[in-house]
């Protein structure tokens, strides 16, 4: 059967208390364009990794903001950073950066952010 990149989600419950607000704000700070995401799933439909497995990038970033962190990092490691999702996204979300920064936050190794002109003495 042709795999269109979509699968039936297994049942799961969302526990709002699990959401760590600071994770979301960190992610939005690193990837401001994420606030434009409309959850259309275009990224998932085109995904190179999704052609081999049921890797579903839209589901992953949804889970991230819903506080369902279990197993996310492991799933994220399947991404090849090929950038197809970036070109497909109708909202200009920097999807690759989203993926890398979710991984950083989950692993607790956040990026050093850029502070304007302090570079030069």
């Amino acid at each position: 059967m042709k795999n269109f990149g979509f699968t039936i989600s297994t049942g799961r419950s969302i526990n709002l208390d699990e959401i760590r607000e600071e994770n979301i704000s960190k992610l939005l700070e690193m990837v401001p364009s994420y606030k434009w995401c409309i959850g259309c799933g275009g990224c998932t439909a085109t995904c190179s990794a999704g052609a081999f497995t049921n890797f579903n990038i839209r589901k992953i970033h949804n889970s991230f903001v819903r506080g369902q962190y279990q197993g996310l990092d492991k799933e994220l490691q399947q991404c090849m950073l090929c950038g197809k999702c970036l070109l497909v996204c109708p909202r200009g979300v920097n999807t690759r950066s989203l993926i890398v920064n979710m991984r950083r936050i989950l692993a607790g190794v956040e990026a050093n952010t850029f502070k304007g002109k302090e570079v030069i003495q």
Partner: protein
Amino acid sequence: MKDSFSIFVIPFCAGVLVLLGISVWKYWRWIRSFDKLQRAIIRKNIWSWRFLPAIWEAFREGLLHWRITKKNLLLGYMHRSLAFGWFLLIVVGAVQARLAYPDGHPFWMAIFYNYFEPECHPVDFPRAAFFANLMDGLLLYVLSGLMLAMFKKVWSRPLGMKRTTRHTLMDRVTKLALWSIFPLRLLSEAVTAGINGNGGFLVTWLGGVFDSIGISNPAFEYTCWMLYSVALGTFFSLMPFSRYMHIFTEVFLIYFRQLGVHDSNKKTGYTMFELSACSRCGICIDGCPLNRELGITNVQGVYMLQSIRNLELQRNAEPIAENCLMCDRCVADCPVNLDLSVIRRQVRIKNKAAIDTKQGYSYLNDVQPFNAIGRIAYFGGCMSHLTPDITRSMEIIFEAVGQKYWYMDKDQTICCGRPLLQQGFERQAFELRRKNTEMIVNSKATMLITSCPICYQSFKKEYHLSIPVMHHTEYIDMLVKSGRLKLRKDDRRVSYHDPCELGRGCGIYDEPRNVLRATTTLLKTDQEREKSLCCGFNLGNPLLDLEQQTRIRDAARDNLLAPHPDTIATACPMCKKAFTHADNIPVKDIAEIVAANIIEGSAQ
């Protein structure tokens, strides 16, 4: 009574000792931290003739500053007069002292020749006057460069630079010492000439002036020479900690490079040589699209290297390294030919180490290779799946010439790994390369053709395949040249966009143009080949937003539209995507243009 020593030579001698000591220590440490491969390359090639081209290149670049001269005549003159002029002052001064004191002399007598000359009774060597005049001429030459350098500080445009580097405090102090050396030398020699009447045309004239206003007396003379020596000593002792260390380091770097050493994915001693060989000339700033279109002026090569080198600035290395398109424009512009993108990648790799894991791709284990005996392999690449016209055109071309092929990634693409590597995911990229290599080797395909310049650069440089790798423009050019593919010319007028990864990345400039000339009328644009502008949509920079990318894209588009083409041609699916929405003008990959212009029955 003067003899061959005077207290004032001490600062100079101390400076020379400090410089020598620290340089030897630094270089020794760096050479010892070369990695295994780099050492093996040096050991293998050290007894070859490669030192000959190295000497020539060191002379051409270290002293004559050829590459800078090619960019801007005045800028080249400035660098050359300071470097070559000073070099000649030292060499001719040494010859002069050697001739004057055939029985030997302390080394400082060559530097302070005019001071000691009246009392140390040099022998009457032939052409003594000629040497004195020559030394004055050389001093004048250096001074002219110095004037230009000062002029450049206030107005750099005439020297071909819109922006100049903002230097660290240490660099500014050292520059002050350097800049004071030559005027002080002129002053000292002139005062001595005023008293003793020695020296060449310049200092005797100036000495006469000093004499007439009554300031030539031994006390003033001594003070001047002391200041000159202090300036020299200060410069030499600060040099190892400043950008002027590039003067010596570049020579070593050129030699290692000629031996075949290159940078690796980790910072090694060789990287230290590169860091130190950067003259902070700032030439890498002007061409950078981030500077040109977005006004970001603190991330270019010069500042990236500074942030790695300078302990206080090291916390900036990561954010600086991230903010870059990896378009290689600065690499093409850098007169020292530094591997800026590789060094940038080293920083990225270091900062991704904690999340760079390779277990994620176990799903690829089940992917089976294909039996492609007697065929070539065609790799469209991830991006080409979003521009199916390109891959369809390639299939038409293969069929037209009767080439049997295996479309490796028709349904599923294993990414080549370069986008990962560019972001610093070294191990993950390796996993993908391993799988793709296994697929290609086991398929027994005889050649690999790819439509994406990113994949092309990856297969060409990061994979070590034993079969030829070609970009489709190269392949088509080869088919046309060998007569296997016959093309007609249509009446399109096209501008060609050089993709960064294909042009600057792999040096493929002519093949696409040959093919376009065979099928269309190819127009010239202002910024092409090495100077081509990045389309802004490449995968190098994870920080830019869509609006910023669009601004970079628009600059590249304007350059392409300037000669009024009716089609924009390119050779990269990503560039094609970038330009497609930029204007109403059609954007075509070369493969599409070719597929539309095949003369039927051209297959052999």
